[in-house]
């Protein structure tokens, strides 16, 4: 009973914050709404026994990734988004399409198994760091190492992309670049 109440409280907060993300015109307000969504999802993870993931959700998602977003918003001095004819067309077409999508998703999820058995919480099923680590470093060792390479590539790509364009002096092109991109 308590779990049902908690589910509805945090589910409502998540949906309301997601709607607020769409309603806000300024990116910084959207970013703060997204942090609320992530925090309430972390609470839902905790409700399902995923302790490690709840901590990671707060630390990595709401912490690191969203700080990156807010940092870029501040860096680019992004203002409120402007209305264009394209955005009106997108709004007219987008909402019916999404109602259709949500309806078909919910129907598919509910129609296959109209009365799924409710599961008991606990019962020894807790995604503790120990249990996750045993899976991660034993069964999923190769994917884990591959993701570390992926992160390395992402770091290098971010540095290359975000660094200001330099004039390629000499080696590659014989003539100097005609028009510098600014």
């Amino acid at each position, binding site marked *: 009973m308590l*779990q*049902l109440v908690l*589910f509805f409280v945090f589910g409502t907060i*998540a*949906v309301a914050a*997601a709607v607020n*993300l*769409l309603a806000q015109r300024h*990116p910084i307000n*959207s*970013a703060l709404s*997204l942090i609320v*969504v*992530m925090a309430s*999802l972390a609470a*839902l*993870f905790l409700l*399902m*026994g*995923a302790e490690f*993931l709840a901590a990671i959700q707060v630390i*990595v*998602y709401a912490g690191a*990734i969203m700080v990156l*977003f807010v940092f*870029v918003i501040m860096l*680019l001095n992004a203002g409120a*988004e*402007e209305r*264009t004819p*394209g*955005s009106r067309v*997108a709004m007219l077409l987008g909402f019916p*399409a*999404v109602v259709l999508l*949500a309806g078909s998703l919910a129907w598919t*999820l509910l129609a296959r*198994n109209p009365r799924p*058995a*409710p*599961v*008991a919480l606990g019962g020894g099923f807790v995604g503790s760091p120990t*249990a*996750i680590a045993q*899976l*991660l470093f034993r069964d*999923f060792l190769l994917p884990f190492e591959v*993701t570390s390479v*992926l*992160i390395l*590539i*992402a770091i290098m*790509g*971010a*540095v290359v*992309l975000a660094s*200001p*364009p330099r004039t390629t002096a000499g080696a590659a092109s014989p003539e100097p670049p005609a028009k510098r*991109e*600014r």
Partner: protein
Amino acid sequence: MVPISYYLVLSAILFSLGVVGFLIKRNLITLFMSIELMLNAVNLAFVAFAWQWKSLNGQVFVFFVMVVAAAEAAVGLAIIIAVFRTRETLNVDRVNLLKL
């Protein structure tokens, strides 16, 4: 006890809100945040199934999704900075040329 279908429907709602955000918003950074919202909704579905089947594999998968999301955010935001440097706008309707 919360039936798993409640979690799945909540996940579907959040995913659809992410899709609608991607469709109607015109700011590059907000589009990116909509993608993060969709990834979060899928994570919720993964954790719900892991809970239903009492298997931790779903939670490990969520871990990998988070790693990929972090890498995607780093590279994507760098691309946004590069786009802003050349076009001086964040509106996707104005980013309509491959070459300046």
